[in-house]
């Protein structure tokens, strides 16, 4: 009996062909990512300088300028949205995974998935009706509220998953030495799940930073520094949306540069979250 490879066999040929096909499809799948990244890099790189990060957008036809107000606006609104959604999201997930009845949990998970599936433009319209119409002004508050609704399902789902991964035996062990339920959850289970929870939160933040639709209706945009949370506030995503479509070359270049900054922000958060994941417990 021969145990050596017989390269002429149909089985071998099929095996090699399928491996090659799967490999080529991976390359095809990676093309858009590389194309987008390199295009943004090429187009945006020429304007990547200190002015970009420190100056206000110029009026039409004027040269130079930057996108500093939009960077600040994005940081403010995403920060505010995180302050709202992180405690609510993690709290709900803890209730969901550790305290709720299985039937209740199934409904909450279903509701979370539905919320996750709601298109972001609808969240924008909702926030417009709920916060802009009632207060009669576009504001950073309204923008942050819309973003926080967007972040909530991601945070709940990833935290829920992170808590479910923590082995049941660890909970028993804590209860076995006389820990009450809340002690078990807060002192043993949540710390064990923390790296994965952090990853979920950074993912939610990265997603919120790049969203345009909820902000167009709520925070709007200004050419100036954001000086109050209850006034229209610029953001990178809306700046890209506004500037990319105007017929002025300077504005178009700024839109590309803003895209690059946005991509870098999102990329940095993903890398930070990977770093947190490396220390994961389970």
């Amino acid at each position: 009996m021969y145990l050596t490879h017989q390269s002429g066999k149909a089985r071998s040929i099929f095996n090699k062909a399928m491996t090659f096909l799967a490999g080529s499809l991976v390359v095809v799948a990676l093309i858009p990512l590389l194309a987008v990244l390199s295009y943004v890099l090429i187009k945006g790189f020429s304007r990547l300088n200190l002015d970009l990060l420190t100056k206000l957008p110029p009026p039409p036809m004027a040269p130079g300028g930057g996108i500093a107000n939009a960077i600040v606006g994005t940081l403010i609104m995403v920060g505010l949205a995180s302050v709202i959604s992180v405690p609510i999201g993690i709290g709900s997930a803890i209730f969901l995974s550790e305290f709720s009845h299985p039937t209740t949990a199934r409904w909450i998970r279903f509701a979370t998935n539905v919320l996750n599936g709601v298109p972001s433009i609808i969240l924008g319209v909702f926030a417009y009706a709920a916060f802009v119409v009632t207060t009669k002004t576009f504001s950073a508050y309204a923008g942050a509220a819309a973003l926080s609704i967007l972040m909530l399902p991601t945070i709940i789902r990833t935290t829920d998953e992170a808590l479910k991964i923590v082995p049941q035996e660890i909970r028993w062990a804590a209860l076995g030495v006389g820990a009450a339920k809340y002690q078990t959850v807060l002192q043993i289970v949540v710390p064990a799940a923390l790296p994965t929870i952090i990853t979920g939160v950074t993912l939610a933040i990265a997603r919120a930073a790049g969203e345009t639709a909820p902000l167009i209706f709520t925070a709007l945009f200004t050419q100036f520094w954001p000086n109050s949370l209850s006034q229209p506030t610029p953001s990178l995503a809306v700046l890209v949306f506004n500037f990319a479509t105007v017929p002025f070359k300077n504005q178009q270049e700024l839109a590309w540069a803003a895209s690059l900054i946005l991509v870098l922000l999102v990329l940095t958060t993903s890398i930070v979250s990977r770093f947190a994941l490396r220390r994961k417990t389970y």
Partner: protein
Amino acid sequence: MTHYSPQMATQTQDKLEDTALEAVNLHIHYGSFLAVRDVCLKIARNQITSFIGPSGCGKSTLLRCFNRLNDLIESFYIKGQVYHDNQDLYSRHVDPVLVRRRIGMVFQKPNPFPKSIYDNVAYGPRINGFKGSLDELVEQSLRQAALWDEVKDKLKQSGTALSGGQQQRLCIARTIAVQPEVILMDEPCAALDPISTLKVEQLMNELKKQYTIVIVTHNMQQASRVSDKTAFFNVEATDKGKVGYLVEYDDTVNIFTNPRETYTRDYIAGRFG
């Protein structure tokens, strides 16, 4: 040497020995499913009692009744009574958290917390409001668990980085640190190699001077080596599913050399099923 019948032996010992745990007509249910039926059993203080029997006979389920760990399962309920020091553990006035502080548990799979070795041992005393030198208590518990010499220079390292046998002894140290009265062990050596198993068995012999130990094991040599008394459980199929029940409970010597029941004899001899 006078030959006692097993019946006589149990009767005399009931009078002589102090009872730490007792199950009286205990039925264990999961929803409409009866898992274990009608167990009557007294567990003597400062002795090692082992539960043996085929898989699914409810020995682990019964063990978890003694520290109310089954409470975590939604559909679980019991009929009958479980006593610890003459207190009904399932009385509505009893706080299961306090029960678990007095009746500790070691699990099948070593399950140290993802914390440092020191914090693993110190966690129980801390949450129980221990006043005194925590350092001393940690050292004493680790010494009792025969782990101190191996870990004394690396108390800050993670407990999960230890070997399986060391992890299990860490879990025992963690249980001892709370200073319980009873230690329940659910197949504590199932995931360990023979050398670690030997260490844990030697440890149990040391520990029984201070604690009452109940151990569930699939290893019959282990039961015969370490335990003073052995309870043999069996499982029978009924139209509503498999129900576990206590077949025979006696001194380990009698169970292994002169069992009363044919089932026990067959199981011990490996002629089962």
